[in-house]
């Protein structure tokens, strides 16, 4: 009798066949989202090569695809963690910690001696790509690193850079930025290995110490030498910190093993489990039903399982389009060349935008430049465009976005307006009693809840890419469809697959899967638009109760230019808040800049003259950029290679204390940092800023501070 253990994973299938307690056959292959086809191929080969026979031999299945495929061939299902644990207990009785990393999941197992037996503690996550194999491969593909080269790339001895460990899509973006900044691909890949180990330890140890001996399993752990090195580095230093007692003369690094058959442990575990089952369980029934499912069943299922289309039968699409398209804003004409104008600029992380308002708050011009990473050059380009369009004298300038503090003095802005206030001011200007603003941009999702004319709550998600517009755009590009045509395509769909809310990376593979089931581009695009509100409000925004947030919803941000998204948003919001009023900001993408300009008008009305430096002055801004050993950010181990951009500016105080000293009459702008901390040059500046802040604090009391400083010293009555 032969026993088959088959592990149908998210990216590969691994199978072993055991005959008389000996492994007589094994293989693993990628299935490229065709799990059933690959499984049937494996079984057919076993029939041919080993005479696997229906009605005699046993098949045991595990892995994420087992639930579908196993029953079709008579297989018995074994839970993945149970399978891995069974194999480890059999083959490695001394192992205390196992990490198994798969394509789209990760698991940790802790074995503890407990009396005569052993206790197991098991953790697994499969909701997010952070920490899984896909996380590494996705970026490696983008960097065009062949698989063999990736497998051999080292971790040891590489300098590491900041890469988002939580989100595969952001990691890819980080990798892109690093690449543009001249970081060698080897260092980027090493940083990815670091991120994966970090993410596994951070989310899947839950207070347990991974003690020796350690077993690393699963494809990524087996294939990527660098990942193994990263584990060794982290675990041995952890053991040193925790003063773990290792066997005498043992090299800590030897306590971490990666068996040659690390891929097959779940499959081997199936065989272990099979040994304890009653006769007849898992009896192989041949491939007929699986064949039927591939040829017909899955298509029938497609017809049944699909959700209703974005446009339902009795929906009035033209009415919807008319209602929401009508709110697109137009530019007004300038009354006369000498009427004063107000400029609002929004310096975002990927683009810089500006609008010009007339004194009556009418919009005269709107300009946009993509950010090139040098804020001074971005500002020059933006103001060149503004100058071409706005002829009146500039009576006020306001900045918002990340550049508001950086560029305020350099451009001579009258005020810096925090993003939330800019967005709220702009939304309230158009819709005076708005309750909620939902801004979906390219790389982030912002939700602002307004009350009493203020922003009372605010959700920003820039850690996870789920729900943002870049993803939608990426999929459209892959189908070769222009973003402007997205909505029309999506509206054509008569049905659509149900995509699961959550991680964007997995959404991508889910899309491949749905495509394979026969869903067309239009249908998939419709379902992507339909899942976006879930990702925006619930997954990324963590806002479950829309009703409590309000009734009047303003949608803005570039992604809401896509009417398919608007339609999905309208359906989603009205399902939760039946009497909701949904408003599209007429200037979806420029809302921040408009808000800033409105604040500039408010400041001007309060009698403040403008300190704008003038177009000419900005055009000839003299600056020099330094990137050296001394500009490297030392705030955290990521060590961003920043650029110090020094701008000549009358009256600027310079930075005599800096490692890259700056004389009087120059102002410094820091760029190339990946977090706000990097805007601070070093400890010298930190001290200066801290002292200034403490002085400000000393001026006014804080009862909490008094508790912090006085309550824990000695008994009050004693003093």
């Amino acid at each position, binding site marked *: 009798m032969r026993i088959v253990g088959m592990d149908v994973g998210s990216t590969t299938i691994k199978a072993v066949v055991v005959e008389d307690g000996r492994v007589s056959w094994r293989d693993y292959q990628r299935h490229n989202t065709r799990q059933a086809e690959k499984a049937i191929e494996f079984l057919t080969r076993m029939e041919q090569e080993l005479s696997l026979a229906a009605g005699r031999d046993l098949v045991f299945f595990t892995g994420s695809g087992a639930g579908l495929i196993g029953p079709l061939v008579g297989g018995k299902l074994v839970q993945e963690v149970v399978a891995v644990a069974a194999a480890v207990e059999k083959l490695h009785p001394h192992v205390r910690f196992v990490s198994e990393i798969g394509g789209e999941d990760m698991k940790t197992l802790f074995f503890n001696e407990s009396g005569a037996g052993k206790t197991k503690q098991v953790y697994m996550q499969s909701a997010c790509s952070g920490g899984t194999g896909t996380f590494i491969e996705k970026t490696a593909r983008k960097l065009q690193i062949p698989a063999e080269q990736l497998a051999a790339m080292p971790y040891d001895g590489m300098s590491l850079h900041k890469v988002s460990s939580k989100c595969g899509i952001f990691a890819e973006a980080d990798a892109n930025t690093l690449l543009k900044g001249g970081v060698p691909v080897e260092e980027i890949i090493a940083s990815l290995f670091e991120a994966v180990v970090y993410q596994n330890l951070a989310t899947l140890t839950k*207070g347990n110490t991974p003690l020796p001996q350690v077993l690393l399993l699963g494809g990524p752990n087996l294939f990527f030498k660098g990942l193994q090195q990263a584990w060794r580095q982290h675990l041995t230093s952890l053991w040193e910190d925790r003063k773990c007692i290792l066997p005498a003369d043992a090299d800590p690094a030897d306590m971490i093993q990666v068996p040659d058959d690390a891929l097959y442990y779940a499959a081997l575990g199936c065989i272990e489990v099979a040994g304890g089952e009653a006769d007849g369980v898992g009896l192989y029934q041949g491939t007929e039903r699986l064949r039927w499912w591939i040829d017909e069943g899955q298509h029938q299922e497609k017809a049944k399982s699909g959700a209703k289309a974005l446009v339902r039968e009795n929906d009035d699409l033209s009415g919807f389009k008319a209602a929401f398209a009508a709110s697109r804003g137009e530019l007004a004409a300038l009354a006369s060349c000498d009427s004063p104008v107000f400029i609002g600029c929004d310096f975002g992380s990927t683009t810089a935008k500006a609008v010009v308002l007339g004194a009556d708050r009418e919009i005269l011009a709107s300009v946009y430049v993509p950010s090139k990473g040098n804020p001074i050059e971005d500002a020059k380009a933006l103001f060149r465009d503004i100058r071409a369009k706005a002829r009146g004298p500039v009576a006020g300038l306001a900045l918002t976005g990340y550049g508001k503090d950086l560029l305020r003095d350099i451009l001579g802005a009258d005020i810096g307006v925090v993003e939330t*206030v800019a967005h709220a001011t702009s939304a309230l200007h158009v819709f005076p009693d708005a309750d909620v603003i939902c801004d979906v941009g390219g790389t982030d999702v912002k939700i602002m809840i307004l009350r009493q004319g203020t922003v*009372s709550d605010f959700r920003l998600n820039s850690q996870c890419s789920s729900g943002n517009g870049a993803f939608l755009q990426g999929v459209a590009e892959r189908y070769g469809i222009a973003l402007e045509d997205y909505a029309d395509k999506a509206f054509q769909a008569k049905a659509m697959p149900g995509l699961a809310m959550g991680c964007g990376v997995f959404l991508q593979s889910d899309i491949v899967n749905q495509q394979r089931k026969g869903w067309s581009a239009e249908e998939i695009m419709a379902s992507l638009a339909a899942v976006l509100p879930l990702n925006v409000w619930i997954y990324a925004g963590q806002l479950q109760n829309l009703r409590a947030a309000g009734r009047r919803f303003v949608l803005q941000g570039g992604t809401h230019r896509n009417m398919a998204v608007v339609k999905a948003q309208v359906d989603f919001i009205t399902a939760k808040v039946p009497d909701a009023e949904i408003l599209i900001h007429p200037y979806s993408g420029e809302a921040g800049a408009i808000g800033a300009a409105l604040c500039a008008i408010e400041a001007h009305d309060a009698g403040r003259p403008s300190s704008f430096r003038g177009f000419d002055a900005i055009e000839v801004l003299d600056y020099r950029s330094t990137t050296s050993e001394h500009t490297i950010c030392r705030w955290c181990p990521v060590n961003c290679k920043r650029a110090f951009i020094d701008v000549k500016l009358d009256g600027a105080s310079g930075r005599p204390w800096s490692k890259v000293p700056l004389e009087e009459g120059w102002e410094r702008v820091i760029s190339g940092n990946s977090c*706000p901390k990097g805007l601070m040059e070093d400890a010298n500046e930190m001290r200066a800023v801290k002292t200034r802040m403490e002085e400000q604090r000393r001026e*006014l009391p804080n009862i909490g501070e008094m508790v*912090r400083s006085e309550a824990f010293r000695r*008994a009050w009555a004693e003093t």
Partner: protein
Amino acid sequence: MARWFDRRPSGGHGQRPERAERAKLRIGIPKVLNVWTTHQLWLGFFASLGIPGNRVVFSSDTSEEQGREFGSGRGTVDCCYPVKCISGHYGELVFGQKRKIDILFSPMIYSMPSFLHGHVADSLACPRVMAAPENIKSGFLKEKDVFAEQGIRYVAPLVSLVDPLQVPKQLFIAFEGVLPGLRFEEVREAVDQGYRTLAAFDRELRSRSRRILEWCAREQRPCVMVLARPYHMDAGIGHEIEADLQAHGYPILWMQYFPTDPDLLDWMFGPDIREGYAKSVFDISDVWPSSYSANTNEILWGAKAAARVPWVTCAIRLTSYECGMDQPTFTPVQQIVERSGTLFFSFQELDSTKPAGSVKIRVETIAHYLQRSSRAVMERKAAAMPAGCPLLEKPACRAGGTATADGD
């Protein structure tokens, strides 16, 4: 009331050799959870037993470094960060002291000495918070008994602080055999001393709060009131968010130490009582009938107070990630504050990391609205309150304390 603060002689047992032995002990207390409002009770208690303040060691403020260095691998499966972080505090007290501690004292505070007690259904601590020491200690016992290995006695008694008659018994049982020559009488006296010490501290901080309010009233300047649980004062839990606002030019009050002087409270709540909405100045049954939790009760009362004082133009709510105690209070607290026209902002889901970017944006947002609306808020609130505000009529003339609000 003045007699409360009279110094008492420390009793006749100063000469006993056991007390000299005790004075050599070092006691470590994790500076966590409700220790943030009962600190002085413990300091007074130990002082009375012959262990001076300089031998009582509190752990440092919570920090991620502390957690990494001393707590990692000993954590618990608990989404409540104020509980979870205690592993780091225990670890710091056990491993991170230059001079070793002999006793790790981590009280399981079942009920709290709340100023609202007697006006509310009860003054209990959150059950998860109360049981935290049990939860955390397992991380130090699971693999081996770390306390025994380090020669530390672990003392974690259940204490019902709202019931001062119970406490001596609870603490005597806990410390008998741990503190040399301990007698029940001594413990009873020490508990009394603890309560007196705590009361003295609270009274001083309330009087400072009053002076801040008087200064605001006199100068027509706005201030900000924090509505949060006591441990949000911990720089690693509340992330000093209120201090960022302070740096924008606003004095900061914490609801826990709001002045409770009868003249002020009568001015604030008298009309409600006379019209039959409230039974006393500390009554919260009008807004929170199931008033069992001390910290929750105080937050609700704080919201009522913030709503009534014209110079409190903004209330800040801090809550930790997934706090089940706070969740049902979000709407009532917000509405109580906002109905009065006071600005209200909440920082929810605080966790281990200070979300520096988002906090900066929020603080700047709040500062913007405070600057724009404070004057109007003060005027509107003042118009809704009765004449004769004692904050305006009685200039500060209280003894003790060092805080000044007149710094500008």
